[in-house]
């Protein structure tokens, strides 16, 4: 009985982790210049006012860390959480974004904290200490991602850098998408999050990225059960026979084309037969930052190859 409660609690916890993207989109209401103070309309209706340009930023979100460094605000960052492993120059600490400890964060005397979720009373706790906190939740699509880059630009006084990063990402993505021929029939993709077949539907950021490439996501068949991150049954994956399998569990679960083809019944899947099983970095595939361009660059050649074979 006790173990059962743990099971349910675990389920809830997975829900919390994977569906941490339920928050609303937010918008910038300040002028595009770097003149402080600035006010940012964050998610959940809260507005964040930053009095002067921050120089002691603490980031508890790996994606926000990547964005901050990409817009040249890296020198303003004093500490990042234990999951912020990119770029290598980010000052990684033992701070946790899952179980944030207000005291430990406050010890860095931050003038801005960026996080992806308001867990463990983070906003309330930092509010009591008058430390401004910006919540940048998991993006649902590229627009969300661009908006967050703009907001971080405003918050750090690097509006120009943020705008040029956004422009660069937009043009890179457009040229990758343009390089792929229009499919005769949509190719089917299976995106794997772990070796118990959790996947991501088109309602998620990564699902939207596949949609950009014109791919049909087999996880969309399971949206009735879980709109964003369903656990697919093996029978369904095998019978769907996806043309492309993308393994976003190469680091967590050490999966690769060999382990996938050794699974019972999986050898009949089109992607396994043709060797179109792609290893991606778990982190790149689970973040909504600038490296989404790298992700698309890794996938695009496979899509091109399959389209060429089909033609």
């Amino acid at each position, binding site marked *: 009985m006790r173990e059962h409660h743990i099971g349910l609690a675990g389920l809830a916890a997975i829900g919390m982790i994977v569906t941490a993207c339920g928050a609303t989109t937010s918008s910038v209401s300040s002028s595009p210049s770097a003149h402080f103070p600035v006010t940012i309309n964050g998610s959940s209706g809260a507005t964040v006012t930053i009095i002067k340009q921050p120089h002691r930023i603490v980031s508890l979100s790996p994606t926000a860390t990547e964005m901050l460094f990409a817009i040249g605000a890296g020198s303003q960052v004093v500490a990042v959480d234990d999951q912020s492993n990119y770029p290598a120059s980010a000052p990684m600490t033992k701070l946790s974004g899952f179980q944030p400890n207000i005291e430990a964060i406050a010890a860095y005397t931050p003038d801005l904290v960026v996080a992806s979720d308001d867990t463990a009373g983070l906003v309330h706790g930092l509010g009591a200490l008058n430390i401004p906190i910006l919540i940048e939740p998991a993006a649902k699509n590229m627009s969300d991602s661009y908006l967050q880059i703009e907001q971080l630009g405003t918050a750090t006084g690097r509006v120009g850098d943020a705008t040029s990063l956004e422009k660069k990402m937009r043009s890179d993505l457009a040229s990758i998408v343009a390089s792929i021929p229009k499919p005769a029939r949509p190719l089917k993709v299976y995106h794997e999050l772990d070796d118990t077949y959790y996947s991501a539907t088109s309602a998620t950021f990564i699902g939207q990225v596949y949609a950009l490439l014109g791919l049909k996501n087999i996880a969309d*068949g399971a949206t009735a059960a879980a709109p964003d991150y369903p656990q697919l049954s093996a029978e*369904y994956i095998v019978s769907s026979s996806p043309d492309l399998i993308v393994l976003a569990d190469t680091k967590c679960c050490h999966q690769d084309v060999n382990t996938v083809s050794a699974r019972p019944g999986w050898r009949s899947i089109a992607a396994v037969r043709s060797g179109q099983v792609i290893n991606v970095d778990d982190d790149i595939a689970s973040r909504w930052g600038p490296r989404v361009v790298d992700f698309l660059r890794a996938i695009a050649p496979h899509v091109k190859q399959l389209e060429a074979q089909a033609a």
Partner: protein
Amino acid sequence: MLILGRRFARPARRPAALLQGLPYLVWAGAGFVALAGAAVLGVLVGPVHIGLGTVVQSFLAPIPWLHMTAIDPGQASILWSLRIPRVVLGAIVGAMLAAAGAAYQGVFRNPLADPYLLGAAAGANLGATLAIAFAPGSTLIGVNVVPLAGFAGAGLAVAGAYALGQTVTGLRNTTGLILAGVAIAAFFNAVQTYVQQAQTSNIRQVYSWILGRLVTAGWDGVLLVLPYVVLSIAVIVLYRRLLDALSVGDEEVTSLGISARRVRLIVVVAATLGTAAVVAIAGTIAFVGIIIPHTVRLLVGRSYRVVIPLSLLFGAAFLMLADTAARTVAAPAELPIGVITAFVGAPFFIVVMRSTRAAAL
């Protein structure tokens, strides 16, 4: 419970009471029918539709003189590599958990005893969490290290609880054991939670593991658990008469010239071995070990000569049905099987309890 049961006993309002008079052999027959029915349903129903004719054809194709053509290889691999091993494993896990639950209830003379009472689940979860955190992806003699660590953790926890329980004096023997088990489970849970919080990047896998791995199990999983389960069930079945004596009291066993402590140890070791093996492969599936034996007691009788064999049959049937629901209700998505066993099992059990003599507990 006893007094209440008698005071409010109104036979006319208890339809299941009619079933209580049926002889054991009728129930055994019903058990086999349930087992066969659940197996057939499990093989026929799944997220991918495979028609009855195709399934029959697939079963008959290997027989040479029938000259049947083989079915589509894609459907054949879904049927034989994915669905049938899962149905078989469901039966093994269900039978094992129900029998282990019954055995534990006898050994501890406690209706709330389940196979995880002495910390088997907490130990398995800790072992698996450690393996996921510190030895990800490694194998030992070709077998993934995670289930092995789960198996070892379960065994270790129960051994620890047993050793600790034996040192407690002044309490009735089983009470000391149960308390030791509770303490060990709490301690292992604490360590497990600590390791998991310190390794947040692995949190998903840990929960996936705890929620159960029937999803990915194939024939290799069946082969991995089978020897332990066969041994464990054999011992429990052989000891069913001694469990009857033990459920009356230690003196009853002693009067037969047998050490009650030894009987207890052998049954606990056997039940733990089987439980550890199925937990290592299937994760922690709650409630089966409690409701199946109690339902048998309520409907058929309290003797372990009846409870053990019928728990095996109905436990296997119940878990096969629960797993069929787990993979079809939300298809093509999966539901955690533990959710099904408790969601369906708890109300069912309450109905059985209300409609029979509660005094039978």
